């Protein structure tokens, strides 16, 4: 018996394949349509649920409340402005009064100040007195201002002289201001 006889006609098989493709196409189209519709509705609903309107309403309410306090708001704003600017000015001020104070404090009682010149960059001073010990103490104190307190630097003793007539020593010192 011959077993190679094909009982199913090739035409029927082709038709079946086409029916299958059609079914797949229809199912795919339906699925895509459903998917697109679902996404469209979902995005639309999400867009609707964003609370822009409620936020804007709250904003308007708060703004109308603040409007009644406008003068206070402006004053408060200016307080902050003044405080910030004052803080900046105070921070950038130089320390001339502190340096002058430190130099005075460093001066022994028996020395007298002949001249002090202080600006933002440099100091120069002339002291006079009858004792070399006090002069030495003053030099030590001024050196300490440079080494420990870091107020001044590059300290130079320019002159140490004796006025024989008045029995007075005089010392001239120059230094740079440490910024």
């Amino acid at each position, binding site marked *: 018996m011959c077993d190679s006889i094909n009982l199913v006609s090739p035409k029927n098989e082709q038709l079946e394949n086409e029916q299958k493709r059609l079914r797949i196409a229809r199912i795919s*189209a339906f699925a895509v349509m459903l998917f697109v519709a679902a996404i469209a509705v979902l*995005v639309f609903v999400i867009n609707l649920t964003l609370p822009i309107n409620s*936020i804007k309403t709250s904003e308007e309410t708060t703004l109308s409340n603040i409007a009644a306090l406008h003068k206070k708001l402006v004053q408060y704003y200016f307080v902050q402005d003044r405080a910030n600017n004052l803080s900046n000015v105070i921070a950038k001020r130089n320390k001339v009064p502190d340096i002058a104070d430190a130099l005075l404090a460093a001066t022994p009682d028996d020395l007298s100040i002949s001249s002090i010149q202080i600006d933002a960059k440099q100091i120069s001073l002339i002291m006079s007195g009858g004792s070399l010990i006090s002069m030495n103490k003053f030099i030590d104190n001024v050196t300490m201002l440079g080494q420990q307190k870091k107020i001044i630097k590059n300290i130079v003793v320019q002159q140490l002289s004796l006025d024989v007539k008045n029995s007075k020593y005089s010392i001239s010192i120059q230094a740079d201001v440490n910024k």
Partner: protein
Amino acid sequence: MNIDISDSKKINVDFENLALLYKHYKEFLLPVGVILVSILVIIYVIFPQIQQYFNSQNLVKAEQLKLDTLRNNYSLLTSSDDATITADLNTLSLALPSQKDFAGIIDAISYVSAKTGVTVGNFEFSLGNLSASNFGGTVYPSTKIDLSLEGSAKNIVNFTHEIVKTMPVAEVTAVNITGGTGSLTILFYYKPFPSQNISDQTQIVPLSAKQVSLMKDISSWNSVGAAGLPVIPGTTATSSAGTSATSPF
């Protein structure tokens, strides 16, 4: 109609063939059409909606931020005391005037002179650049004064100490003491109020600890103007240099 696809192959496209193809594949037209329409909907409807969602979300964030700022402002304003804010502003305006405060400067010098026992001799004002356009940001205009003093070195140094703790805010830039006389160069600072309009939406924040501490320090400064010459923003004043400040309210 003959369409030449390649040299070796010719396809005959005519009405009968098209009709035959249509008849053969017409069942597929609807699904393919639906898929095409769906793709068009995705491109022209869904993508813009998604884009709009992100835009809206950004908008919501921005609006929420604005609302938070407004609420903070409102809560800060309602919790602050009117009198305290006005007093603080007066104090700070005396310490850093919005314009050249000659009266304040003279009062400060007189006050410190009396307090330290130093006699004030001649003095000279230098006003510097008066162009208001240069006063923005961290530029601080100042009135420079060269001052002659008579007194002991200690008293003159005390004068420098006191003048920098007296309103209006000052900086001693040079000290020159010789014998019983001295000369000082002092800068008295001022700063115009910000000129932009302050709307109800302007953000204000509570004073920082540093600012509160600064307020305390400044309140302890010598103040002559506090008793007699309060400078409150909102009053119209004219300086001797001819510049004027208008009400910010």
